[in-house]
């Protein structure tokens, strides 16, 4: 789960990590007031749940009221990668001498949290990682030790020579780790963490994402959630036991199992088609789940054909076939369906489908090829 910069910085501030003075605004008028209150220069920043707002023109330095108004007018309502800017953060301008990167995430390899720092802050860390990987220092954190004071100090010494900054950073890094653990974050990032002209560390930006699996025990974090339209659909689907992600193609997919669903999408692409979605309906043969899945697929108007790929494991193919028939009786579908059913009791399942006049194909690749040709036919 993602949250906005202003929300992340509120959390950081709660842990006494120094952040810029700033005010969240929803209108041009509010931006004008905020900028006057904070003084100039100030920075107006789009609050959207996607990256790259800087390149999109969603961040403006303003030196006076007129510029503030202009920036607010320009940024509010802006479309950044499909996200409409509904609020902006007005932050006090800060004069600084240096920009640091500091972030915490999970390292799958060491199976631990990893602290990353770089003297090359202020730019996207992915770019640093690509162009100058040795500029990023990584410190795996033993969960039994946590961010021990000596360990935070060791990281601080890797960045600074000035003892004043080392002290500040040692303290700040321990707090940042505490934020990470306390909130079940999957990423906490301060970029840039600047050294101000007064030699103080200050978080100019903040980014946090959270482990979806842990939201059940993080009600305060969950309350910050602002799902996009697509994400709302995904959340609705999840509540019905479906794992759904909308894509841009025309072939709607219904598969049991995440791995098989991915492989099905891949297969479609392999033969030149475009999947309209990732959809894992899980292991049950419950007709209601199939109906929900169908409705979900059909809510996407790009879908020209439905490809059903079921592998019967614990769930037997004959049960799945019955569920499919029951579902298709309740829901009228105007577009073609390709069904592939394999695995446990597949013979019985295929016989049931055949008797219901539902044609099937034998393999995944056949199914993909047939779905593609049908999607093209349908277009004609």
């Amino acid at each position, binding site marked *: 789960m993602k949250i906005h910069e202003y929300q992340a910085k509120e959390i950081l501030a709660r842990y006494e990590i120094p952040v810029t003075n700033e005010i969240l605004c929803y209108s041009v008028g509010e931006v004008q007031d905020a900028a006057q209150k904070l003084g100039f220069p100030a920075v107006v920043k789009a609050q959207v749940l996607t990256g790259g707002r800087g390149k999109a023109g969603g961040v403006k330095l303003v030196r006076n009221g007129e510029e503030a108004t202009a920036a607010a007018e320009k940024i509010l309502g802006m479309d950044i990668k499909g996200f409409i800017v509904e609020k902006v953060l007005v932050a006090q301008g800060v004069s600084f001498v240096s920009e640091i990167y500091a972030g915490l995430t999970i390292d799958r*390899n060491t*199976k631990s949290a990893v602290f990353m720092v770089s003297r090359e802050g202020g730019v996207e860390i992915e770019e640093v990682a690509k162009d100058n990987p040795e500029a990023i220092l990584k410190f795996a954190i033993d969960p039994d030790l946590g961010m021990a004071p000596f360990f935070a100090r060791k990281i601080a010494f890797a960045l600074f020579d000035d003892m004043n900054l080392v002290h500040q950073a040692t303290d700040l890094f321990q707090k940042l780790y505490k934020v990470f653990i306390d909130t079940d974050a999957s990423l906490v990032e301060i970029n840039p963490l600047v050294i101000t002209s007064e030699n103080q560390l200050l978080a100019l930006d903040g980014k946090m994402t959270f482990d979806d699996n842990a939201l059940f025990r993080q009600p305060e974090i969950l309350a910050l959630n602002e799902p996009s339209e697509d994400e709302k659909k995904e959340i609705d689907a999840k509540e019905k036991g479906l794992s759904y992600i909308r894509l841009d193609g025309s072939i709607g997919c219904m598969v049991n199992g995440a791995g098989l669903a*991915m492989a099905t*999408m*891949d297969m479609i692409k*392999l033969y030149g088609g475009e999947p309209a979605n990732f959809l894992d309906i899980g292991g049950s043969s419950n007709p209601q789940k199939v109906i929900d899945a169908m409705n979900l697929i059909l809510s996407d108007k790009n879908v020209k054909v439905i490809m059903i790929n079921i592998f019967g*494991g614990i769930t037997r193919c004959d049960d799945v076939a019955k569920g499919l028939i029951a579902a298709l009786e309740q829901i009228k579908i105007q577009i073609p369906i390709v069904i592939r059913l394999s*695995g446990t009791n597949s013979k019985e399942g295929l016989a049931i489908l055949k008797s219901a006049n539902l044609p099937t194909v034998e393999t995944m690749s056949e199914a993909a090829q047939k779905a593609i040709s049908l999607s093209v036919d349908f277009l004609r």
Partner: protein
Amino acid sequence: MSILVNKNTKLLVQGITGRDGSFHTKKMIEYGTNVVGGVSPGKSGQSVHGVPVFNTVADAVKATGANTSVIFVPAPYAADAVLEAAEAGIGLVIAISEGVPTLDMVRITPYLQKRGTKLVGANCPGLISPDEAMVGILPGNIFLKGNIGLMSRSGTLTYEMVYQLTTNGLGQSTCVGIGGDPVAGLYYEELLQMFEEDPETDAIVLIGEIGGDAEERAAQYIKEHITKPVVGFIGGLTAPPGKRMGHAGAIISSGTGTGAEKIAAFEAVGVQVARQPSEIPELLKKLLKI
């Protein structure tokens, strides 16, 4: 021989009185797995499908000599259940539970190392050594005893693969579902080593997916340590970045963890990569010269 589970496996089911725990206990017993006990706090004295239930893992181990445990408890309690098994001296824990918080997995990892307890999962379908023992929720009927070792981050995709192997007469020594979470227990490297050392395994199938760099590290490991032929497959080649493809671990972030990178890493060390599941049997037959 097979790896991890076999006829000597004495299995406990943690969460045996739950819906899933009870259902799959029955399936495991039917497959022939030696299920010696179950754990469900407060249900001591009851039995599930003839299996005695205990209040704690320690009690169960004491009474049954269990050496392996499979976990069906809900995700919020799963990590604690793994710790309980490790503390009670269980050597191998298989966590089926889906949705375990990542930091729970991080937190328990050093304790498992300290106790010498191996973990498979969480969020995995389990593992099977055909005709010896099935632990988890795998459909036992699709497997065939043989000489192919298989490991996979996915469930149904594994069944698809195994079905193709079995219908082509290629049996399996052991198939391990390592789970779809970012931080999990046993992973490619440990399992590759086990299959390498297992005299009953002659070739290895590694089914990876997008996200992380485990496949890249596995490729390096294969280059340095594995002499048996390995066939690979990567799911999610066409998944868009930043989207979690069902599995928490199957996410491409910042342009790393893509399928193309993983395929390239495998091919660079001589691992044959199937472009679709149905190619796997052919590749294996060629490599095994059968």
